[in-house]
């Protein structure tokens, strides 16, 4: 029974990089053949017949081994792309990453140029989706100054981009205390002035209770600027909406 062809083994993994890379490790180490394994995120989904389901326990050590292998045998660039893909909102991402790695460990660094391969295209599509969303948030994130000189920003990204966005701000605002809260996932990137940042699980209500609002006039000044800088004769809300989609505006000062 075990090694029957066409019998698929599904590795169920937790939706975070550690979970996914541990599943990659386990699937590979199971030696069932790449065609006979599939990676899938945990969660409610229809069970299929003739499949074994194996839940994967995330193991940072196994994950680190996979990461090390990607960096060494494929390339750093590939690792960055795979890491971003692992943060995607896409349901099938775990398997897409697995398929890319099968190609990657076979071809080595050259895999990054094989844009005609579906395995590569799929991974790059995820990479792009996540990279673009992270970029949007470096653009449109807005901080509010709270009591005790803490900057507080809220975001609701579709993909889990907080860990891509936080380093950008930790670098440029190294002297500031700031907290960026992913409202949907209830965790935050916290940066104490002059130190390195870290992630913490925290609810929106909790965060808002910790930080008390400080009245500040810069919101109004910014709104004034934002409306004065537009040229009336070129007014074009449609264009504005396509460049700054409504879903990014939820916490954006000038649209509040």
């Amino acid at each position: 029974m075990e090694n029957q062809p066409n019998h698929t083994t599904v590795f169920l993994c937790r939706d975070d990089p550690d979970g996914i890379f541990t599943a990659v490790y386990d699937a590979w180490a199971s030696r069932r053949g790449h065609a006979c394994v599939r990676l899938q995120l945990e969660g409610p989904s229809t069970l299929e017949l003739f499949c074994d389901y194996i839940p994967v326990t995330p193991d940072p050590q196994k994950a680190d081994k996979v990461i090390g292998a990607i960096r060494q045998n494929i390339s750093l660039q590939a690792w960055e792309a795979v890491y971003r893909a692992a943060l995607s909102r896409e349901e099938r991402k775990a398997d897409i990453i697995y398929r890319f790695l099968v190609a990657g460990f076979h071809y080595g660094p050259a895999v990054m140029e094989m844009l005609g391969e579906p395995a590569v295209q799929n991974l790059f599509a995820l990479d792009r989706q996540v990279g673009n969303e992270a970029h949007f948030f470096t653009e449109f994130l807005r901080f509010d100054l709270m009591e005790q000189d803490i900057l507080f920003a809220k975001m609701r990204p579709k993909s889990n981009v907080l860990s891509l966005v936080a380093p950008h701000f930790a670098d440029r605002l190294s002297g500031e205390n700031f907290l960026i809260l992913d409202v949907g996932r209830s965790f935050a990137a916290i940066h104490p002035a002059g130190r390195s940042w870290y992630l913490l699980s925290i609810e929106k209500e909790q965060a808002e209770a910790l930080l008390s609002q400080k009245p500040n006039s810069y919101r109004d000044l910014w709104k004034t600027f934002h409306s004065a800088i537009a040229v009336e004769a070129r007014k074009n809300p449609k264009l504005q909406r396509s460049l700054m989609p409504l879903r990014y505006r939820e916490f954006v000062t000038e649209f509040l």
Partner: protein
Amino acid sequence: MLIQENLNLQQKLEILSDAAKYDVACTSSGADRRGKAGTMGSAVACGICHSFAADGRCISLLKILMTNACVYDCKYCANRSSNDVVRTFFTPEEICTLTMEFYRRNYIEGLFLSSGILNTPDQTMELIYQTLWRLREIHRFWGYIHVKAIPGADPQLIQLTGQLADRMSVNLELPTVDGLKTLAPSKTRTRILTPMRQIQQGIRADSFRLPQRKTLKKDSDMFALPRHQEAPGQSPSFPLSPQESAPLKPFDPDISLPDTPGALKYASGSRFVPAGQSTQMIIGATPETDHQILSVTEALYRQFDLKRVFYSAYVALNNDSLLPAPGTPPPLLREHRLYQADWLLRFYDFSASELLTEDKPYFNLSMDPKCDWALRHLEQFPMEISKADYASLLRVPGIGVKSARRIVAARRHHSLDFDALKKLGVVLKRAGYFITCNGRMYRAIRLDEDYLALALSETDKRTRLRFEEGVGVYRQLSLFDDFYLTAGPKGTDVAKSISGQM
């Protein structure tokens, strides 16, 4: 001219940003530096747009005038001395505070400071210099600064200012000498080109300096997975108590002026205008042809090493017999075609004479300049994707810099079909007419000029409609439509470009 003294900051901001809005460039690109302890800010090579105004233009920088008072009476300008508008000014400290407070809230990428001429060019330039100096030295601002060089100001002042700024620009104002003479009699072409040349030479001299040693990124920090930390106690480890948090923003009002110009403390290796020089000209206020405008542009790129030339469709606001009547809609489609052609000059190795000639001095408004060029050179098509070299690929409508590079990289490993081309970012609804893939055409068509002209003009229709509805195009002509595909050569192609960027 009466300058209002009793306005509050909000009123001043409203007046001085409104007065600055006709300046096109809102770019924050070209400079790349990481943050630095004790300062606020960083700069990203591709630039960052922070918002989009109601006209759809990118807002990247705090774009303001230092003052809208001006001794000149240029006919096209909203701030000309004969216009009856409220005049005011910002003090250097007010500009610094606004920049810093906006920046830390992630509203802006930096400052774009321009100004009307207050009494003399020298006095204006000096105030601008003082502002920048305060911003860098006292407020420790490490973000992006774009500043105007005032024509006619002391070269020494321009030199000093250039060491504090990332980008400098001098506005050409109008494409030709004649235009300038009619509409801005107090300005001359020579006076405008002098500081432009000075900045160019400054940048060149700077580029001969020894490169600074690059610090290697620490592997472990860059690539370690950010994992959740155990919650330290119950609350996050900040707010820190005041004594615990290091005073990282030294504010010392007694800080002395730097001993030697160019040896500023904010950057030990302070560079001169590292993000390069740009300029802009007004389109449609004077009767120049597209050919004239594009030739001037080409000359500016070749002879002055400019990073960007911007075009500003003239918004008719002043009443003057020499100008289009107030209310005339700005020529947005024409402006768009100019930007498209500008792109072809900078990244596609086209020359102005290939696109327009004296006999054909205007762009074909019904299709983009590259399609227009291809139609006139059908003998070069169809082009075989598996064989054509990079330079030829760039000439195909529907293939951009990024997709050409991807094609060259990918075809080394396997042959490409139309489906793969689509995934690489090739726009087949245009390219489809001009290429073959392993000998096959995309669809059966005749390479016939009239037929193609009709088909391509149909494809372009949506663009035109956007303009006819009174629409502009921004996040303009991005060099690649997806800014994160990690294939092929990196480096210069990170240049995301927006009218606001690059």
